[in-house]
C-alpha cells in the first residue's frame, strides 16, 4: 500500500488537543495490490487504522465488451463473454447462449442441456476453489491454495478433454453444443466427484474450526439481507445473509429442474458465513454433477437454429446463477445478424458496490478479507 501525502485537514482544530493529531488519512490501495485480485483501486479514508470511508476506482480493464457486441454477429460475440469472468468462462457462455436462444425462440435439446449443466457446475466448483485458495492466502493461510489448485486442475483437465481449452473455453454454441461429449466424460466426472468429497473435508478441516480463521472472518464485513437486496448484491453474498434464494431454483434454466439440491444459507452475513455458504455450494454442485451423469439423454446436441442467426426484432432478458451471483444478459434485436444492443449484468460489478458499506469501521487488514469474500473478478467488473 502506498501512502499518499493526501492528508485531510478538516480536523485541524482538534489537532492541538492530542499528542499525535486526529487527522484523517487517505491512503490508496491498489491498483497493483495483490489482494485486490486484479486492478482494483480503493481509496480509503482512515481514522487511525479504522476505515471511515472509501471509494472504488475501477475501469482499468475496460475493453468495451458491450460495444464490441454491437459490431459482431451473435456467434462471433460468444467467445468474448468468456473473457469477462475469466475464471468462470463456462457460466458466462451458458448465460449468453441461453439468452440468444430465448431471443430466437429456440431451445437447446435435452442432451445439450444436461451436458451444459454438468460443465457449468464443474465450473462453479473451479471458480469457488480459486476463490477459496486466494481468499485464504490473502488472510494468511498459505496451504489451502495448493490443495484448491490441485482440484481445480482436475476440473480444467475435463474441460480440456472436452473442448481443448482450459480457461476461456467457449464450450457451448447458440442452440446447443459444438462438440459431442467425449467417451469417458461421465467416468472422469464421476472420479472427480468421488475424490472431491474428501477433498472438501480437507479444506474444511484446515479452516472451519481454525481459531485464526474464525478470528479473521467472524463478524467481519457484515451485510444484512435488507442491505443486500437494496444494493443488488446476489449469489453467495445474498445467501450468506440468510435469503434462501437461488436462480437455479427460482427460475430454473438448463436442466436444473431435474436435480435435487439444497440452497445453503448463512445467518449473520459475515465473511465466515460466506465462506461456509461457498463450501456447501461446492458440495451441492458435486451432487448435481453426480445426478446428471447418471442419466445423460441420448439425441442431438444442437437445435436447428441455422447458420445465420437473425432473431425476430424484440428484446429479451435472461439471467443465470453464476458462481458470483446473478449474471444477466439483456439483448435487443433489430432483426439483423448483429445484436442491436447487448447489456451484461455483471454480478461482480454490482456486488462490489457493497464494499463501502462492508468495510466501514473495520481495520485496513480486514479490507483485504472483505475484498476477498466478495469474490470479484475485475475482468467482469470493468468489461
Amino acid at each position, binding site marked *: 500500500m502506498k501512502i499518499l501525502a493526501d492528508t485531510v485537514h478538516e480536523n485541524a482544530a482538534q489537532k492541538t488537543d492530542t499528542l499525535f493529531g486526529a487527522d484523517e488519512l487517505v491512503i490508496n490501495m491498489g491498483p497493483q495490490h495483490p489482494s485486490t485480485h486484479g486492478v482494483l483501486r480503493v481509496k480509503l479514508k482512515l481514522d487511525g487504522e479504522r476505515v471511515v470511508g472509501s471509494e472504488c476506482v475501477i475501469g482499468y480493464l475496460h475493453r468495451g465488451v458491450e460495444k464490441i457486441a454491437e459490431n459482431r454477429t451473435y456467434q462471433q460475440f460468444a467467445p468474448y463473454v468468456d473473457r469477462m469472468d475469466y475464471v468462470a468462462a463456462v457460466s458466462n457462455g451458458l448465460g449468453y447462449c441461453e439468452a440468444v436462444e430465448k*431471443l430466437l*425462440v429456440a431451445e437447446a435439446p435435452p442432451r445439450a442441456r444436461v451436458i451444459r449443466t454438468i460443465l457449468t457446475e464443474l465450473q462453479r466448483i473451479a471458480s469457488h476453489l480459486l476463490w477459496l485458495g486466494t481468499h485464504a492466502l490473502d488472510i494468511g493461510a498459505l496451504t489451502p491454495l495448493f490443495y484448491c489448485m490441485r482440484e481445480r486442475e482436475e476440473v480444467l483437465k475435463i474441460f480440456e478433454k472436452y473442448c481443448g481449452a482450459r480457461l476461456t473455453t467457449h464450450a457451448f454454441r447458440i442452440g446447443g453444443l459444438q462438440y459431442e461429449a467425449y467417451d469417458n466424460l461421465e467416468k472422469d466426472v464421476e472420479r472427480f466427484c468421488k475424490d472431491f468429497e474428501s477433498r472438501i473435508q480437507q479444506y474444511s478441516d484446515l479452516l472451519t474450526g481454525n481459531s485464526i480463521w474464525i478470528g479473521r472472518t467472524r463478524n467481519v464485513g457484515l451485510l444484512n439481507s435488507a442491505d443486500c437486496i437494496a*444494493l443488488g448484491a446476489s449469489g453467495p453474498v445474498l445467501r450468506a445473509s440468510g435469503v434462501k434464494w437461488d436462480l437455479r431454483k427460482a427460475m430454473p434454466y438448463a436442466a436444473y429442474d431435474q436435480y435435487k439440491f439444497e440452497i445453503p444459507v448463512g445467518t449473520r452475513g459475515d465473511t465466515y458465513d460466506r465462506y461456509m455458504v461457498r463450501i456447501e455450494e461446492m458440495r451441492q454442485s458435486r451432487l448435481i454433477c453426480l445426478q446428471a451423469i447418471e442419466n445423460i439423454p441420448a439425441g442431438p446436441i444442437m437445435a436447428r437454429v*441455422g447458420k445465420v442467426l437473425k*432473431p*425476430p426484432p424484440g*428484446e429479451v432478458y435472461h439471467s443465470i446463477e453464476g458462481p458470483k451471483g446473478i449474471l444477466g444478459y*439483456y439483448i435487443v434485436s433489430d432483426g439483423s445478424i448483429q445484436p442491436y444492443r447487448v447489456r451484461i*449484468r455483471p454480478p461482480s460489478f454490482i456486488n462490489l458496490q457493497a464494499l463501502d458499506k462492508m468495510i466501514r469501521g473495520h481495520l485496513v487488514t480486514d479490507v483485504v478479507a472483505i475484498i476477498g469474500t466478495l469474490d470479484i473478478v475485475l475482468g467482469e467488473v470493468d468489461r
Partner: protein
Amino acid sequence: MADESKAPKSPESSQPGVSGSSPAPSAAGAPPSSPAKAAAPAPVQVPLDNDLSRRYREHFGAGILDALEDRKQSILIVGVAQLLEIARYSRDEEKFDLLEDYTAVDWPRREKRFDLVAQLYSFTHNTRLRLKIPLGVEERPSTLVPVWPAANWLEREIFDLFGITFHGHPNLKRILLPDEWQGHPLRKDYDILQQDTAWVRENLGIESGQ
C-alpha cells in the same frame, strides 16, 4: 448498426399504434428456430393485459404509455415524468424489491432518442418486470438511488457510456472511463474505432492507443 432504420418500426412507446404490425415481419425472419415452434410461429410481441398492468394503469393513468409482452416477458413503457413515483410504487406496493439491472439503449433516429431499461425482480412473487422509459436527449430523469441504492453505480455507468444525466444523483461521475474522457462510447454515433485521441496522447504518451 446499419439497421437503425428499424427503430421506428419496433413497438417503442412513442407510437403504440404500430406495435401490432411488428410481429408479422419477424415471423418471416424466424424459420431457423426450433422445428416445434416453427410449425406455428406465435408472435413474439403482444400487448400485455393482465392484473399487473391494469393495476399500474389504474394508479398512473397516462404515466403508463404502453404495456406489452415480448417472449413472455412483461414490459411496461412509462413516462419519465412519473419515473420516481412509479419506482416507489413498484418497490413498496408491487414488491419489486430488487433492481436487477438498469441500462439504456440508443435509438438515434427516434424522436425520443434513448430508452432507459430497468429490470425489476420480486422475491415475494418470483416475477420479473421490465420498465422502459423513453427519453429525449435533453431530458434529465430523476435518480432511482433513493428507491434502490443499487442504482448508484448503474446510473453512473449509464452516464459514462450514454451521457444521460440523472437529476439528484449523489455522485454522478464517470465510472469505467477516465474522468476527463470526451464522448460516450455506447451511443450509436460513436464509432467502434473512435477514441479520445487527445486523452490517449496526453496520458499514455502514444498516438493510437492500439
